[in-house]
């Protein structure tokens, strides 16, 4: 019985120390040092917020770079992967379908040039990035749709390609939303 009494009191004490104290310290740190006062960082364009910097969003228009397939259609209120096994026949048929769709949208590509990450779904369904290759293969389509020089678009891709951490660890990446915002900034009103 004495143990139960201590259990109650120590639980309350830990609530005070952790759920209140520790949490408030971090909340304070976020207000001081976080990129957006502790809320998800956002990207603005044309006087309005067009997305969270770190959360992928759906792009289907030919004038935009596209992100990776998402098992949850980029629903930022939830998140989720496909959880399909590498050997699942239905899944493999789905990937084949995506390859054909991708090739139809980019007729200048051969099958061997399609990066597999552009036809496989991400883990969170909210992957904000694509690989540099995934962006480069889309350059010609985007340039044609916008009536831009391919070299101009390629320059934008190159300037927004992020190297691995410290140039040494991890993967290079390109944030799709920032890439498309950069295109819009260069060429406002095309999609209005």
């Amino acid at each position, binding site marked *: 019985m004495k*143990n139960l009494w*201590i*259990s109650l*009191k*120590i639980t309350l*004490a*830990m*609530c005070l*120390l*952790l*759920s209140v104290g520790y949490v408030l310290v*971090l909340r304070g*740190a976020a207000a001081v*040092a*976080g990129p957006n006062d*502790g*809320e*998800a960082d*956002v990207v603005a*364009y044309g006087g309005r917020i*067009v*997305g*969270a910097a770190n959360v992928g*969003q759906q*792009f289907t228009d030919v004038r935009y770079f596209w992100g990776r397939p998402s098992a949850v259609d980029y629903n*930022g*209120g*939830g998140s*989720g*992967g*496909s*959880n*399909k*096994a*590498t*050997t699942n026949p239905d*899944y493999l048929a789905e*990937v084949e379908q995506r390859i054909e769709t991708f090739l139809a949208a980019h007729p200048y590509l051969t*099958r*061997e040039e*399609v*990066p*597999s990450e552009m036809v*496989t779904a*991400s*883990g*969170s369904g909210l992957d*904000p*990035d694509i*690989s540099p*290759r995934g962006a480069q293969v889309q350059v010609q389509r985007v340039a044609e749709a916008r009536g831009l020089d391919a070299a101009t678009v390629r320059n934008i891709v190159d300037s927004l390609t992020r190297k*691995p*951490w410290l140039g*040494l*660890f*991890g*993967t290079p*990446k390109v944030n799709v*939303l920032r890439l498309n915002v950069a295109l*819009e900034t260069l060429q406002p009103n095309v999609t209005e």
Partner: protein
Amino acid sequence: MNTEILGVVLQWVLLVVLCYPLGRYMAKVYKGERTWLDFMAPVERLIYRLCGIDPSQEMDWKKFLKALLTVNLFWFFWGMVLLVCQGWLPLNPDGNPGQTPDLAFNTCISFMVNCNLQHYSGETGLSYFTQLFVIMLFQFVTAACGMAAMAGIMKALAAKSTKTIGNFWVFLTKSVTRILMPLSLVVGILLVINGTPMSFDGKQTLTTLEGSEQVISQGPTAAIVPIKQLGTNGGGYFGTNSSHPLENPNAFTNILECWSILILPMSMVFAFGFYTRRRKLAAWIFTVMLFAFTTGVVVSVWQEMNGNPHIDEMGVAQDLGSMEGKEIRIGSGASAMWGMVTTVTSNGSVNSMHDSQTPLSGMLQMLNMQINCWFGGVGVGWMNYFAFLIIAVFISGLMVGRTPEFLGKKVEAREMKIATLVVLMHPFLILVGTGIAAAVAAANPEIGWLNNPSFHGLSEMLYEYTSSAANNGSGFEGLADNTPFWNISTGIALIMGRYFPIVGQVAIAGLLASKKFVPESAGTLKTDTGTFSLMTFAVIIIVAALSFFPALALGPIADYLTI
């Protein structure tokens, strides 16, 4: 050299280099020696005074376990009440409803046992209040509970002969104030700087560049992620855990979070060495664990970076490896590394979807959890290894005709019975559970549990029970597991998988401690040697292989062979 592989190597090096000093620090904390965090002492004294704890009072192993089990029982009711009622409680800006009783039962058990199996999704299944006052609180205190048990065992094994093994409440409190909270603060601040949200506002609604509406879940994420990792808890703030870009924004945070998972279990091995002044034994235990862990990492990283052969057959460029269920900023190599780190410990957080990893990676993840002592959960992992040590001592004692002794204490029938029960309970829970589930699924093909057909379907069920019994909490998430059958049956596996070993291991240590100390002689079997370490390794592999190989052959191995 490939930067993805460099990233994996860096994580490995950071772990191995830093666990030694941290282990020494932890031993000092539990011994009550001076450390640079002594400024926490007034906070601790205040907690003792408020709770009516006498820190100088020592407990024998039975009293120690009674306190441990009572507080756990109390936490169960605390969690149940708050989870069911969360819809009416404050800090619920998204208006999420209370959990159903069977889901609350599963959630509560799974966090209470430091497992964090999640049959709900954080964005919709919890309010901010329950995230902080149930989930995060449990992530701290249950990890501290495992560490306290470990501290008790260390104290028992360090003494020549003793009846008492320390004060449970003191160990619990110090684990939080001296180890878990300070480290969590450092990790949390680094996460906040890198863009992990930390606020109490509800979902953001915004219009995307293409003009459609998108809702962004956020909240006090940066408070929960550090302790989720450090406490080997693993329960993600968001449904997809650390593959979610807000929970794990970039390559740096990925390395930081992955490091946080394994650092305390690794340090615990050295803490044992420093505490009991048996550094050589600790170094050998560490070597065995590190060898097993690293082997898994090498195979899994190779498999994932190699890609899915079926996608190669389609003729596309698979340069980045198997990317289904993985994120670009993390990459296939670091995803494979994490998969191993999270399963050797009882962590269970994920940064990629394990269901979509290649069959051999899936098998290694299961095998890690089935063995459950390559570092293991904070405290409890070392304790699982301890049960195997006792068995290895006994078997080798019989083989070479010496009295089985461990740390100067005779190992006798009673300790052996407990150790054997502890070791066998694990396969029993996993295999019987999977067997029943497979029979139910086969008899009712319309039941719709499985997301994938054939061998991989069996793997999904095997993984779920393995993860539950090992208190891991990751899953082959394709499994439709939020049903009364899964909530209740895995809930039972969780309880048995947690308390049965803890009680058994503390009891063994307590029994050993109270025995007469036998000084080392020529007839003593030395346990701090390479030969004995190899022996322990063999015992572990044989027990695991004999129990789990048939099931693995029907699941991931068959999956691999038919790829």
